[in-house]
Structure formats: structure tokens, C-alpha cells
């Protein structure tokens, strides 16, 4: 997919585990894993808002567009 989710990078920067983030934003670890591994087809704004709030970052820090050539 052309959109890459840099959640691992942000978690490392904030020194937070994916389990802790999942608990804070009310998501299951399985769903968070779907996001981390790039298998997600879509993300709700509410989820994106919650992640940005907990990781104190912007959506652009999490999402990266790479054109498919």
C-alpha cells in the first residue's frame, strides 16, 4: 500500500510499548498490530486522534505517502 504507518518509530521515540498504547486508546493489541504491520485498509479519525494524543504527535508523523512506481 502507498501509505506507510510509522507507529513503531513513534512508539520507540516516546518509549512506549504497543500494549500500553493499545490500553490507553481502547484498542485491542490485535487491531493495533494490524495498523503496525501495514495490513490496515482504513483508520478512523477517532483512532488517529487518540494515537496522536497519547503519542503527542501529528498525523503526518505517523502516516507517510510513498508513490507506487
Amino acid at each position, binding site marked *: 500500500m502507498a501509505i506507510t504507518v510509522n507507529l513503531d518509530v513513534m512508539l520507540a521515540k516516546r518509549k512506549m510499548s504497543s500494549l500500553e498504547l493499545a490500553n490507553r486508546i481502547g484498542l485491542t493489541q490485535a487491531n493495533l498490530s494490524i495498523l503496525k504491520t501495514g495490513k*490496515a*485498509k*482504513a483508520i*478512523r479519525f477517532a483512532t488517529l486522534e487518540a494515537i496522536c494524543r497519547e503519542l503527542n504527535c501529528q498525523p503526518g508523523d505517523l502516516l507517510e505517502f510513498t508513490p507506487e512506481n
Partner: protein
Amino acid sequence: MKKTSIYIPFALWANRLVALVTFALIFFLPWILAWYIGFRPLTDMDRTLVTACFYCCVVVILWALWNVERLLQSIRRGQVFIRENVTRIRRLCYCCGGVGLICIPAAVAYLPLIFLVIIMAFLCLMVSVVASVMDAAVLLQEENDLTV
């Protein structure tokens, strides 16, 4: 979901009853056929051809009923929009088409059976449409499952 839980056991039992009748047909088919065909006499060769075609249909029907059983069990477990169910419905479509094709020689021998061929072809078309709709639903479900 409550409506589904009322109809699924009924559908399961209806499916098993039809399977029982189909098994019984294996033993009683010659007599049933003799009674049905008695309305218009056939040569021995035509009677054999019709009997052989119907026995082939019994095999196809039993496979279709097995797929229906697996489909209904899957729905009862709450797994409705999954790839396997689309495959099972497509197999039902092939069974309808298969029965129609098998009955063509029988219809040549005994013309009134042509209605069976036409009905099976129509059923094949309808079930194919259902399979396509189910396929689209599975895509939506997969997207929904992968929406975080």
C-alpha cells in the same frame, strides 16, 4: 441476529430431511421412475438412460446438500461473510448447472424432463447472482475487519 437463529436450525433440519429423501431415492428410484414414466411408455434403452441420468443427479444433489450443511453450520457459528461460504455457494451454482446438463440426455429420451433442465438452468443463474452478491459482501467485511 435473532431472526437468523430461528431460521438456521429449521434450514439445517430441512437440509437433512432432503438428504434422507435423496438417500431413499437411491433404493426406490427405479419404482418411482417406472410409475412416473408409466404415463408415457418408453423403450427399455430410454428408460435405462433416464434412470442412469437420475442416479448421476443423486450424486450431485448429495454433494450440494453437503455444501448446504457446511454453509448453514458456518452461519450458525456466526461466520457469515467468509471466503469459504462464497466457495460453497458457487459450488451450489455448479451443482444446479450440473444437474441441468446431466438431465439433457434424459430430456431427449423423455421430453417432459426438459422443464427440469430449464428450471435447473434458471436456478444456476439465480444462485450465481447470490454468490456474486456474497463475494461483494465478503470484500466489504474484510475491509471492515481491517479498519482500525
